[in-house]
């Protein structure tokens, strides 16, 4: 017994070393086996707290790159938001005469300009979805514009708030036709020109699309008459029309395919040739 104590006392350092070494080797070997979780890890109060404090300081050094990364992420997420059609199904209006539901493409405005004289919209549907130039674009409140150009995924639309757009329209109750233009002044109002003096117009009358063009079906709402002028040079009425649509705030729109368009165009061409 005495000898054992003597041995322990003599070699106390060596024994202590071996004891601590075996513990540390155990920890090492244990950490190298994949199936067990580590006993010693930085997921605890002390190390977590220290790392959080250190990170509080070091994150300032990385703010620039972090901002860049976040901006990229934002751009990516925004492109996802703007490019996916909503999972909630947008109801297709049923009251469009002359169009079957399958002739309507639901789309979304991904860019909208209204602060210049020639305004265009960008939609997230394109040639892949069957959008072609000169298709009419409406929404639940009224007309929006006419498709100008298409790419495989996107389409641009000449807004009715474009000084170059001319759309055939009529007064709902009297069937007198005119041309719908925009004077480039107020985004809430468009002008219907060339309405014959014979027409009985009254303030508050509803203006709808006319049946003369093949772009829009007949009787799609546009707006109500707000002011009536008489053009001194031509003696036609010029009507100031308050739009039903808020053109500065557009979400989902419907693109209308006209089945008869090609047929009508061909017929008109042949008629002109014959003459």
């Amino acid at each position, binding site marked *: 017994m005495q000898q054992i104590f003597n041995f322990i006392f003599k070699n*106390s*350092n060596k024994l*202590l*070393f071996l004891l*601590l*070494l075996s*513990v*540390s*080797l*155990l*920890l*090492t*070997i*244990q*950490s*190298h086996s994949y199936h067990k979780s*580590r006993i*010693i*890890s*930085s997921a*605890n109060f*002390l*190390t977590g707290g*220290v*790392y959080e404090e*250190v990170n509080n300081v*070091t994150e300032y050094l990385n703010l620039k790159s972090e901002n860049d990364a976040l901006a990229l992420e934002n751009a990516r997420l925004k492109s996802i938001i703007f490019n996916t059609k909503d999972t909630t199904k947008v109801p297709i209006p049923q009251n469009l005469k002359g169009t079957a539901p399958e002739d309507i493409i639901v789309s979304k405005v991904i860019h909208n300009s209204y602060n210049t004289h020639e305004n265009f919209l960008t939609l997230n549907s394109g040639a892949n979805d069957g959008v072609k130039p000169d298709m009419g674009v409406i929404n639940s409140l009224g007309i929006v514009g006419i498709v100008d150009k298409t790419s495989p995924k996107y389409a641009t639309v000449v807004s009715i708030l474009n000084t170059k757009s001319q759309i055939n329209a009529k007064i709902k109750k009297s069937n007198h036709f005119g041309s719908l233009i925009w004077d480039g002044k107020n985004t809430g109002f468009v002008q219907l020109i060339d309405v014959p003096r014979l027409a009985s117009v009254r303030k508050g009358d509803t203006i709808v699309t006319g049946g003369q063009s093949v772009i829009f079906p007949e009787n799609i709402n546009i707006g109500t008459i707000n002011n009536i002028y008489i053009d001194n040079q031509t003696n036609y009425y010029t009507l100031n029309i308050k739009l039903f649509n808020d053109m500065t705030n557009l979400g989902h729109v419907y693109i209308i395919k006209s089945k008869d368009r090609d047929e009508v165009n061909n017929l008109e061409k042949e008629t002109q040739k014959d003459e």
Partner: protein
Amino acid sequence: MNSTLLLNILRFILLLTLQIVIFNNMTFLGFIMPLPYILFIILYPVNSNRAALLISSFFLGLTMDLFSNSGGIHTTACLILAYYRPYIFKFAFGVSYEYQTIKLNESLTPERFTFILLAVVIHHFTLFILEAFQVSFILDILIRTLLSTVFTIISCIIIIYLIKPNKR
């Protein structure tokens, strides 16, 4: 004696903080990291209690392992360095080192440099062997040991001669 104990505790905490906050974030070429925290073992008083050195080295390494999620590699390396420290002393300063008053934090003589170099090499070699834990990585281990030793020694010498922790 009391002031030596206090100094060592202070050194323990200070070096660990320095290592974790600053040097753990200083990586060269992605894998070379200076580890000047072993200065605690190097600068430990020559003729002090060996058991205390072993125990404090154990906890020094354990703290490093806690912060670097590395199991027990720092602990083992520190223990081995602490245990073989007297032999390194003997090699570097001659057999009668115990009777000399060795002050490492004075001007850099070849003996002192040899001691620091040997200590750092032993620690790092153990550390990287345990980190890789495979014989097939032996070339990688040697390269890491060599390069990290250079950076650790540079940082150690800078700390010793700039801060001079126990200047009297």
